[in-house]
């Protein structure tokens, strides 16, 4: 299992993938946090979907991680793409047969790959956290947002809970990507299906019938990233509900994909 993870990391650390992904993470983390402060007085809002996060809200203990929290869903989409591509490409390149000859334990392969990709996702989250929090600290004085509460015990607690929520959410998105990769066996199909579903289909369905947001996998994982309904970014989805339903989706996906991976002949 650890040998699989070590091998997988060799693949994940290649400059084009690692620097490319981290570059995107840094750029969008800086952008999300900066807009929160730079557009604070904009009538069009300063957060996603035209919402306004006021000076008072940003001045709370959770204000320092508001940008980090906002970018959580985006990090999830990146994780979904990376996990899906890294899993499905073993089929398209035909490398799965090499892997299985060198490591016939199929569960070990899945777990090892998952560990490596989780580490990759953690690095991504750490980069994002550093960049978005730094941007918030730098831009707060200019936006006349008080940062006094950010550095107190409540601020540290907010950082911890936000980080945990984003980790859970990103790993959840990534796992869905891995499941799609295993089911569809093509990076393009897996990524297209995943991204289209999460960004378009789910939103359309929710627009048609709002109550559906309580049952859509992407909505649950985004709700987890932003801490649930309490924070007001995904109104209507309670954190515990999101955790339960999102977790159920991920668990069912993992069980089906693992079963197929264990039983399926490798004939390409």
């Amino acid at each position: 299992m650890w040998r699989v993870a070590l091998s997988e990391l060799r693949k994940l650390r290649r400059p084009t993938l690692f620097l490319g992904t981290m570059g995107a993470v840094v750029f969008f983390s800086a952008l999300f946090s900066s807009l929160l402060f730079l557009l604070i007085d904009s009538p069009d809002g300063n957060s996603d979907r035209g919402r306004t996060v006021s000076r008072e809200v940003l001045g709370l203990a959770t204000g320092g991680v508001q940008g980090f929290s906002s970018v959580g869903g985006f990090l999830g989409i990146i994780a979904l793409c990376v996990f899906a591509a890294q899993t499905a490409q073993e089929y398209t390149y035909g490398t799965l047969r090499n892997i299985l000859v060198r490591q016939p334990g199929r569960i070990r392969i899945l777990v090892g790959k998952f560990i490596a990709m989780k580490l990759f996702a953690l690095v991504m989250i750490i980069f994002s956290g550093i960049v978005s929090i730094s941007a918030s600290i730098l831009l707060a004085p200019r936006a006349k947002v008080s940062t006094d509460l950010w550095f107190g015990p409540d601020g540290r607690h907010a950082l911890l809970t936000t980080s945990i929520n984003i980790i859970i959410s990103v790993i959840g998105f990534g796992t869905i990507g891995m499941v799609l990769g295993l089911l569809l066996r093509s990076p393009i199909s897996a990524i297209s299906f995943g991204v289209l579903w999460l960004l378009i289909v789910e939103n359309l369905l929710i627009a048609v019938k709002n109550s559906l947001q309580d049952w859509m996998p992407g909505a649950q994982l985004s709700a987890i990233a932003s801490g649930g309904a309490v924070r007001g970014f995904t109104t209507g989805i309670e954190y515990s509900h999101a955790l339960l339903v999102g977790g159920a989706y991920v668990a069912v996906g993992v069980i089906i994909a693992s079963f197929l991976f264990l039983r399926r002949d490798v004939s390409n």
Partner: protein
Amino acid sequence: MSNTAISVSDLSKKYGGRMAVSHATFEVPLGTICGFVGPNGSGKTTTMRMLLGLITPTGGTGEILGESIKHPEKYLPRVGAMIEGPAFYPALSGSENLKYLANLGGFSTDRVQYLLDQVGLGDRAKSKYKTYSLGMKQRLGIAAALLPNPKLLMLDEPTNGLDPEGIQEVRSLLRALADEGTSVFVSSHLLSELELISDYLVMLRKGEVVFTGKMSDLMLDQQPVIIAKGAHESDLGALLAIAQRAGHRAVIRDGAVHVEGPAEWALEFNRAAFDAGITLSQLTPQLPNLEETFFEMTGEK
């Protein structure tokens, strides 16, 4: 301890209503080079995949290096394989690809450069796989198969895409490995190559084993052929008639009469042709080669 590298009995694989491999039974002794031949779609790759645990047989049993094929984890650390051509990550270098597999199998990465040198890729070790030519990719596949310092090497068409020099190098490499005690199970469509290096042969046709045994036994069992040509092309019909009248099977192929019969009958054939007023421009007794035997046994031509 078993003295067979591979032993399969009644091994079968069915896809829907089609038998890809049907009750295959054969053995490959340790330390030999065994050629694995058959027309396209005869089930060679499917058999190899079953032996490597990549696909599950629908019936039969098998053992590799004394271990059941139901437990590939017990023998695969001692097996090197390249199935259906090389498959690597395009964005990684040749060296990185081998290190990836070495990490995966728990082998030392120290052998990577040595193996790349051995297959003639030493100076391109750091080039990305996607920049390799077909022959170089094939060489990297062979290097990957050698990573575990295998007791059994299974190669599917290892000479695909190689130039004549490369083919000769692979032949020498396989012979050297067999001399050191490695068993080699190799499929190839270059039958002349297999004839040169194989000690054993397994021949498949439509998923069924049509021959398994020593290469020398197969060739000895074959009817010698006398190839004859007259001075004029119009003599071929008369030569054919002479051979058939003498009770031999004969055909006209590639501008010559091919007569099945012992080499000694060539003398009589020459005399009969002379009596019929035909001057022979060629009279060659020969044993059929593997390719001719293959076509004869598989009915491919």
